[in-house]
Structure formats: C-alpha cells, structure tokens
C-alpha cells in the first residue's frame, strides 16, 4: 500500500484541523465564485442559482443528520414543503407588516416542531436505520398528500402562487427582491450565514456527540449521553434549516406545489448529499448546487436520457467515491501535499 493511501487510511474520521483549514479555503472560493455570477453571467444563471443554493441548504440539513449522526432521512422534503407553504400562505395575508418576515418566522418553527415531534417519538422508541428511513419516507408521502387533500388552503395540485418578498427596514424603507440579482445576493448571504452557523455547531460539542452517535451509539449511551435527546435535537435543527430553505424557495420560485414535499424530492436531496459528500457541509451544499445545475443542463441536452445519465453518475460516485466530491477533493489535496513534502 502506498504511503499516501496509508496516511489516508489512518486518518481519523473526527475533526481534522487540516481538513477544516482546507474546507475554509474551499468555502471562501465557492462563495466568491457564486458572488461573481450576477455581474459576469447575468440572465438565467442569476435567476436559477438561488434556487440551487437553497437546494444546497436543504442538502446541508440532511448532511447534519446523515454525515454527522449517521441518520439517513428521506423526509427532508416534508420540512422543506412546510417552510414553503408557510411562506406561501403568509404572503397571501395582510396583517399590516411584512408578510415574508412572518412567513420565515412561521416556517422555521413549524418545520422544527414537526421534526422535533417526529424525532422525539421515533428516537425515544429506539428507532434506528431502516425503520427510521421508512418512517421518514412515510412523512414525505404524508406531506404531499396533505398538500393535495387540503386544496382549500394549499391550492391542491394547482399549488400556490407566491410573490417575491421584499426586505423592509421599518422607517428606513424597503428593498424589493423582484430584481434577480438582488434576490441572488440575499439568498447568498442567507446561505453563507446558515453554512457558518451549522459549521460552528458541528465543530463544537454538539457535532462531536453526533459523530459519536454515528460511530457507536451504544458506547455513547454507556458514557451517560442521552442519545435520543441529541438525535431529536439534530433532527429538529435539520428540519428548521430545511424549513428556512423551503420558505425562501417559495418566494424565489413564485410557486409552491405538493411535489415539493414528496418522496422524489426527498430522494433528490439524498442524491445531492451522496454526490457532494455527506461528511462535509460544504460538500453537501456544493452537491445541491452542482447536481441541480447538471440536472438542468442534462435535461436540456438529452431530454430523454438525463435521468439515466444522472443515475449513472450517482452509481459511479457511490461505488468509487464513497466520500463524494468533497472526499475526492480532499484526497487530491492530500496527495498534492504529500507530493510537495516528498520533493
């Protein structure tokens, strides 16, 4: 075995300072590239990328669960749709204050609460792996069905049209986000904030405990940790993040439909995280953006075969690059570092 692969093999799967230094550089690069999009490539990319960034936020919400705690959820779309419908419904109300703020303020707690309640009952009952996946799948199906059946509120299959939000600053005035570039930068700022908050969370005690759950739940319990509490908290947080992404998606896309809460969308989130790299928040974020862009491109170029092509890419990544694109990049940097030291 070569020295490079040996050093990779012997690396701990916990917090690696060099990896995080590398992730900081990569994150800065990604955000700078994104920030450069509107002035350089105006038009469709400036319009569509905020949606993909929000898909990236949804992917990060799953990465918190899957990458750190080892819990695979097929229910993230349900939380996303709760956030989207909260925003959609609030934007149709007139309470005399900014309805978008009300939408966000309701979207996050509503999605958090749904996840917390679901998580509490599942984790307290000791639900693990397959059982949890099945229940979260059912959650997605239920979310879609509720959106369809409650057509008086949700518009059923016709969905809800949602206006673009505006930012209001009390007496200081307001900024409309109907302009795509403004919306782009607003979403980018939110994405950066969510990424930084989640990263801070995952590099601290909470993140370490989640990694402990992924590694050996029984050992963690025997050390006195209330594993069900930490899992519920992680699930609730991931629900809240997904809800925020859904709320902003609704106002960006100007439309909310039942399929946002469905199994297909939940599965897409799993694919984004698997391809981006489930052990890294940035990998998940990039996975959401890159795979959505690729999907868009492939569906235009090979409209009949794009799903097949995407499926093929997914299989290749799962089989050959288990740590996703983030792991691939990390290995490349590691090899480069080793090559430099060897010279």
């Amino acid at each position: 075995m070569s020295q490079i692969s040996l050093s990779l093999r012997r690396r701990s799967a916990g917090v690696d300072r060099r990896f995080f230094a590398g992730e900081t550089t990569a994150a800065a690069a990604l955000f700078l590239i994104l920030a450069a999009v509107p002035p350089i490539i105006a038009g469709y990319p400036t319009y569509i990328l905020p949606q993909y960034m929000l898909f990236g936020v949804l992917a990060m919400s799953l990465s918190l669960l899957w990458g750190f705690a080892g819990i695979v959820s097929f229910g993230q779309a349900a939380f996303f749709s709760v956030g989207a419908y909260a925003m959609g419904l609030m934007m149709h109300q007139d309470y005399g204050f900014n309805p978008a703020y009300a939408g966000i303020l309701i979207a996050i707690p509503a999605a958090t609460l749904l996840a917390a309640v679901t998580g509490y009952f599942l984790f307290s009952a000791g639900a693990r792996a397959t059982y949890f996946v099945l229940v979260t799948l059912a959650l997605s199906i239920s979310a879609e069905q509720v959106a369809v059946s409650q057509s008086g509120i949700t518009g059923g299959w016709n969905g809800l049209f949602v206006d673009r939000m505006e930012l209001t600053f009390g007496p200081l005035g307001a900024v409309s986000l109907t302009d795509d570039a403004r919306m782009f930068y607003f979403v980018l700022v939110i994405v950066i904030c969510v990424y930084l908050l989640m990263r801070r969370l995952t590099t601290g005690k909470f993140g370490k405990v989640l990694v402990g759950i992924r590694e050996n739940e029984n050992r963690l319990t025997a050390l006195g940790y209330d594993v069900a509490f930490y899992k519920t908290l992680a699930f609730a947080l991931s629900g809240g993040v997904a809800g925020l992404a859904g709320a902003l998606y609704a106002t960006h896309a100007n439309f909310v439909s039942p399929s946002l809460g469905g199994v297909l969308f939940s599965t897409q989130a799993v694919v984004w995280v698997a391809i981006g790299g489930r052990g890294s928040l940035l990998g998940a974020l990039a996975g959401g953006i890159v795979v959505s862009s690729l999907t868009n491109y492939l569906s235009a170029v090979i409209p009949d075969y794009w799903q097949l092509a995407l499926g093929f890419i997914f299989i290749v990544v799962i089989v050959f690059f288990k740590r996703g694109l983030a792991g691939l990049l990390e290995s490349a940097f590691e090899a480069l570092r080793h090559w430099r030291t060897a010279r």
Partner: protein
Amino acid sequence: MSALLRTEGLTKHFRGLVANDGIDFSLRSGEVRSIIGPNGAGKTTFLSMISGHLPPTSGRIWYRDREITSFSVVRRARIGIGRKFQTPTLFESLSAYENVELAVLRTESPPAKREARVNAALGTVRLAEGRDTPAQFLAHGQRQWLEIALLLASNAELLLLDEPTAGMTVEETAATAELINRLARERNLSIIIIEHDINFIRDLAARVTVLHLGRVLTEGPFEEVAADQRVREVYLGS
C-alpha cells in the same frame, strides 16, 4: 464501612433459563473484586444488571446507599458506573484522543481542562503516543486500555470490566493488573472484573467471587478460593 455497591437477591431469567439466581453481593469503596466461573455461569449477565443493560427479573441493587434498580444505563453512567464490554466498544474511526474526548465532553467543557483530562487518561493507560491513531488501527491490547481510559475520563467511580485482558500479551496482561491495582489504590476506584485468566486474577491479589449456574459458589481471597474443592471441580480443575 458501608458498601459502595450492594445487590440483594438479584435474579435474571431468560424465558426458562435462570442466568442469575438470587445473587447477594457487596463491594466496598476502593475495592477490586474478581468474578470468575465457567462459561454460562452468569458473570456477564450479572455485570449487565449492574450497568443497567439488562433489567433484573427480581432483586434490588443499591449504589452509594441509593436504590438504582430502575435506573437507566444513562442514569447509572451519570452517577459513576462505567462499563467496559467484553468486546472493546469504541468509536472506531475516531482517534484515541477523540474517543477519550467524547467521554470528557459530557462533564467538562472548557477546552484547556478537557485536553488535560484527555491527556491524563491516555497517559494512565500508556496510550499517550498513540493518541492520533484511529481506534480501529490500535493493537488489541491497546483497544482494551482505550476503553478503560474512556471510563476514567468519564469520571466513573465504579468500573465494570468484562474480560479486560482478552487478547493481550503476557506483558500487557501484567501491565493491566498493575494498572487496575494502581487505580484502586491511588484513586480509590472500585472495580469489578470478569476474567478467565487465572494468572491475572492471582496477580491482582483481590477478593474473588465464584459464580456457578447463576449462583455465588464461594467468595474470598484468591488462595482460599483456589484451594476450595468445589471451585476446583467446577472451574479450575483438580
């Protein structure tokens, strides 16, 4: 001196099988106790009932004069009962340091104190040099020590060690005996050990409880137990 741990009539049935049958047991603070017996004698079941991993069918358990029979594993760990399993149960992909850090994190947050406690625990079990090695790549003996380090770092006061020397070399086994005696002597830790290695039990020079068919056959110093004809018949061989 009152007992740190006491069990009264501790019984465990698995359907028709009686694994433990009315065990009365007591352990003083700072005492090391070896539990020996043939396979199927109920040693691990007994330890599991003390750690909370198995609920007793009947009987009661007291720890520091407080009844803990209904306490969960988590609650028992939090009052100072630490369990080392028969097969090392570790955070496999994490380094030795990160393993111990998780044990410390529950009670200690300031990074400087945390690091000092982790390093101290690793030093105690002779793993200071292997601190960055993932647990899965440690030698078998080192894995056993790492699990003991987790218990030390979690501030456990009663250590339940299930076959701590399994897979160890003669030197490692001797070092483990020395470590256990040192922990009891210097830190006043109470330790219950299940072992099959009679040389190790002799080196510990602790009181021995012999289990047979789920019951306490006899109890006493090693020499006394080893000379007991009943123990020789059921376990040691004549």
